[in-house]
């Protein structure tokens, strides 16, 4: 069995004077301290990539910088799903006996180290070099295409999308490390400046600096937080090669993770779902079984995803308001779910959750990882 024995993070936003390595080290140091482990006890290291520090061997680079000599180390790339994919791999590496204590870490300073303009241009390159990028798309444009089709087929409105931006902002307000905490309303989201129709500024996550880390161990810590289930699916890379933008067939991936954990949807107490855009969050909730098609916003309005609802959703504020620092942005969902399950979420704490369902999305609904975390 594989257990999350410690988590750590930095605040998200503009963090001047830092580098991806220095941010990663801050988060990693906190995670080790919480796990009660010394550097010499870490025998495995998984890290993501950093847009502002492209490197062929980021894991080894970080190991040297931080002072680790792991028996197993490499970076991993699955876009926004990288964080969840690293946790799944860490679980497998512990289960096979390859490692006893793995550090999973990611950090980036896209905002201060790279800048928003450069990040927007760089991120667009996730599209096809020859058959998409020549048309001048951006990541919001890829998701704008997805949104147009999904909303057309399932009768979703722009106000439905806006409701998720408002919810994420209200959750971020209670997190001291969140990038955006000022409350917003539906009208403000709808009136925010157009980016890639139907997506507007407040439908889009920001570019942030920040880092997150966690330790996955063969022995439980006092929080007894187990990685109970995990599954992946990778249906396409490019939005123009996706089979159906109104049905991404992710139910099987979510179900396989829940089956491995031996749970059903009704057992879930907490959700941490990737939310690069409002449309991403709405689609993933519907795909993974937490709302009927086209009805995620109805469930939100019924209070289901509120802190005191049936399925509190992204209680840190998600990518949309806590912030998006690349791979660390996806890891932040896992750090938050871990803190909630451990009863360590402070003012954000929801009522005694035992089981969390998480889902990460990379590319343009391209790479998917579902996870179940469980307090034993």
């Amino acid at each position, binding site marked *: 069995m594989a257990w999350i024995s410690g988590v750590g993070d930095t605040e998200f936003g503009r963090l001047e004077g830092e580098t991806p390595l220095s941010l990663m080290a801050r988060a990693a140091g906190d995670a080790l301290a919480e796990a009660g482990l010394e550097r010499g006890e870490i025998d495995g290291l998984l890290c993501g990539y950093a847009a502002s520090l492209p490197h062929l061997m980021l894991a080894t680079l970080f190991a040297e910088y931080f002072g680790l000599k792991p028996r197993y180390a490499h970076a991993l790339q699955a876009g926004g799903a990288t964080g969840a994919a690293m946790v799944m791999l860490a679980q497998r590496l512990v289960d096979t006996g390859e490692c006893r204590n793995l550090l999973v870490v990611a950090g980036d300073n896209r905002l201060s180290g790279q800048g928003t303009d450069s990040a927007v*241009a760089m991120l667009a390159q996730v599209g096809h070099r020859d058959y998409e990028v020549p*048309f*001048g798309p951006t990541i919001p444009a890829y998701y704008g295409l997805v949104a147009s089709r999904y909303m057309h087929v399932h009768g979703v409105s722009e106000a439905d999308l806006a409701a998720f931006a408002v919810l994420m902002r209200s959750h971020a307000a209670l997190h001291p490390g969140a990038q955006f905490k000022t409350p917003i309303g539906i009208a403000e989201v709808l009136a925010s400046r*157009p980016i890639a129709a139907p997506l507007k500024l407040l439908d889009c996550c920001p570019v942030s600096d920040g880092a997150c880390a966690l330790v996955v161990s063969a022995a439980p810590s006092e929080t007894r937080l187990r990685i109970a289930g995990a599954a992946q699916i990778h249906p396409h890379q490019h939005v123009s090669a996706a089979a159906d933008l109104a049905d991404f067939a992710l139910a099987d991936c979510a179900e396989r993770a829940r089956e491995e954990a031996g749970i059903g949807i009704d057992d879930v107490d907490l959700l941490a779902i990737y939310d690069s855009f409002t449309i991403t969050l709405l689609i993933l909730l519907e795909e993974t079984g937490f709302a009927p098609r086209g009805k995620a916003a109805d469930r939100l309005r019924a209070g289901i995803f509120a802190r005191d609802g049936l399925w509190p959703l992204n209680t840190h504020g998600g990518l949309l308001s806590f912030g998006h620092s690349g791979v660390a942005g996806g890891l932040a969902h896992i750090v938050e779910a871990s803190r909630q399950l451990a009863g360590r979420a402070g003012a954000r704490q929801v009522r005694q959750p035992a089981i969390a369902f998480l889902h990460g999305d990379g590319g343009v609904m391209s790479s998917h990882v579902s996870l179940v975390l469980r307090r034993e």
Partner: protein
Amino acid sequence: MSGGDALAVHFWQGCAVGELRYQRCRACGAAQFHPRRFCARCGGAPDWVVSRGLGTVYAVTSVTRAPTPDFARLAPYDILLVDLDEGFRMMAHGAPGLRIGERVRLGFDRRGERPLPRFEPLGGSS
């Protein structure tokens, strides 16, 4: 245009002479838009063919926040996914205001450094 990819060169040379080139598998008959030396469905050998350029809008976005200064000069511009009648989907530019389900016809925008596929309304929608 990407250095070294002869298939991409062939596609964009087609655009330069007003042809939308795609592939069709000799073995299974599948249409393939992103060209390869094999059919991604069955592994068979594909042939190049030329599309009639008629299709239906599958998805549409209007880009206001452009990725680069060059594209910022064009903004706002519409990007489409179009289902061509021959059975493949592609990204392209579109005339402003096109809607999902609308029938469209291919043209080429020759203002930039290379002719870009751009769809116009065919007149009447399905």
